């Protein structure tokens, strides 16, 4: 994909040269883990059987880490579409469309730079969770397998939502339309998932929705490996199903993004 490298490096330059977006992007994970960790920590003390509610995690931060990592990926990915719309509005897109580069490289430069930012945020988040008092505790040590699952889950959820929002941005000319869609779905997506809450505390119908919400798949995959360490065979097969579902969805959306952007990006 010619053009991908220079365009991605451009995205990076724009990111680290904007001190506000750089700093907020790096601090945000701290806030999230600290705030969510304290705000919902009471859940763990609800009853004597608290550990079973948070699925056997030693504390709430350990329970919620998978959720926060997923949400970080989700939100950062969603916002990438906006950059494409601003390129269109500010005229730079016109220059890219004249050049002999693949149309898809314009869109994928946004997606890949978002993914790279997400990986940095994830690393900070894990570090923050580890240093917080009563923070992240690995019951059984942290293996390479855990790292693999964690990264795979976050990457796939990020690819899924970065693709969706860039697909929208291929046609849309108003940044506000994209923000509207974003605001419409981000919180519902979050609260109909198991990212923040243990399913046992959910209303019945939400629990059903949560089961089919990709956000839950990612959060639960990470949670399963962090809390349990070595997995039973039924946990293993459940993990396999979640990851496979995420993979299929991510590949389908990335391919769709590729073909639709190659077909034409609105000027």
């Amino acid at each position, binding site marked *: 994909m*010619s053009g991908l490298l*220079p365009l991605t*490096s*451009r995205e990076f330059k724009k990111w680290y*040269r904007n001190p506000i977006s750089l700093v907020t992007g790096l601090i945000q994970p701290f806030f999230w883990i600290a705030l969510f960790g304290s705000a919902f920590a009471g859940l763990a003390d609800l009853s004597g059987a608290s550990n079973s509610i948070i699925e056997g995690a030693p504390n709430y931060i350990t329970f919620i880490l998978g959720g926060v990592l997923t949400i970080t990926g989700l939100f950062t990915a969603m916002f990438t579409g906006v950059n494409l719309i601003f390129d269109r509005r500010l005229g*730079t897109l016109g220059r890219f469309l004249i050049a*002999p580069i693949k149309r898809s490289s314009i869109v994928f430069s946004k997606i890949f730079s978002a993914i790279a930012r997400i990986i940095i945020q994830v690393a900070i988040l894990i570090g923050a969770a580890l240093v917080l008092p009563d923070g992240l505790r690995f019951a059984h040590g942290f293996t390479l397998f855990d790292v693999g699952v964690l990264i795979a889950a976050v990457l796939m959820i990020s690819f899924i939502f970065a693709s969706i929002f860039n697909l929208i941005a291929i046609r849309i000319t108003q940044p506000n339309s994209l923000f509207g869609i974003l605001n419409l779905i981000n919180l519902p997506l979050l609260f109909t998932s198991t990212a923040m809450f243990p399913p046992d505390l959910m209303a019945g119908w939400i629990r059903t929705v949560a089961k089919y919400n990709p956000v839950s798949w990612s959060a639960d995959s990470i949670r399963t490996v962090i809390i349990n360490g070595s997995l039973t065979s039924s946990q293993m097969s459940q993990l396999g199903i979640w990851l496979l579902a995420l993979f299929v969805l991510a590949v389908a959306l990335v391919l769709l993004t590729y073909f639709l952007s190659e077909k034409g990006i609105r000027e």
Partner: protein
Amino acid sequence: MTETIIKTENLTKTYSGSNVKAVDNLNIEIMKGEIYGLLGPNGAGKTTTISMLSTRVAPSGGKAIVAGYDIIKDSLKVRKVIGVVPQDLTTDEDLSGYENLMMVASFYDVNKNKAKEKAAQLLRLVDLEEAANKHVKTYSGGMRKRLELIVGLINEPEILFLDEPTLGLDVQTRSQMWKYIRDIQEKLDVTIILTSHYLDEIDALSSRVTIIDHGKVLVTGTSEELKAKLKGDIIMMTFKTQEEAEKIKEFPNLVDVKDNGPKSVRLKVQDSDRELPNVIEFISKNQLSLTRMTVQKPSLDDVFLEYTGKGIRDAEGGGEFRQTMFNMRRLRR
């Protein structure tokens, strides 16, 4: 200058949702090395023509060959050998001028060392060396236009499309841009296709010009040829007496002669440069006393008026005053 570099055959564009042909069976031929002007009012089809030739917009009909490649079948190859400077600004404000150049160079797979050299050369050419490493958002309007100009040249194109390169610039900056455009054409061995609705711009820069309106070619030629088609220059003279004014009408080699108010005459001659000495000789021989004399060569403005039936400013809705002026001039002629 005899090699054809762009040729269109009945090139047509109808935008979806519209019945109007933005470009209507356009046939033009552009020669290698020339600065070719496309002149027409806003909405005449200039930008659409350039957009099609630069493969940004797909034609609805007809065909075009650009630097030997078909714009539909070989659009990628066309893109590689052309440079485009669109009407709108396209450089990234958050990058420096130099970074913008290097980024665009890499779109064209220009070797990095060569791109560095080229960028330095181009920045020097338009006097942007000092600002090269500053963010584009700190540039003035004229500086940004200059940067746009050289961004379109970083891939060493055979053909450069300039769409309204001086739109919105002040008079001084405009003539500065003209100088840069001439420099580019001289030093970089590139064919330039220039659109403009400024007549003086086309007149000053282009070797040949095509006037288009409503997507159709009205006339093509060098601006000298086009002016010559108006058949002559005007010499206006005022004399002391009406008798003298009548006498000058006997001057031979006239194309046309009209009264222009009391004691005043409007002569039309083939070539004022050549006829003026004869006119003066005629005046002195007949001992006429001249009080006032002006020579008017036709401008591209007059050419435009002749072919479109309207002044270029009126075509843009430029106001009734200009319309009246043009009508008056036409009546007087």
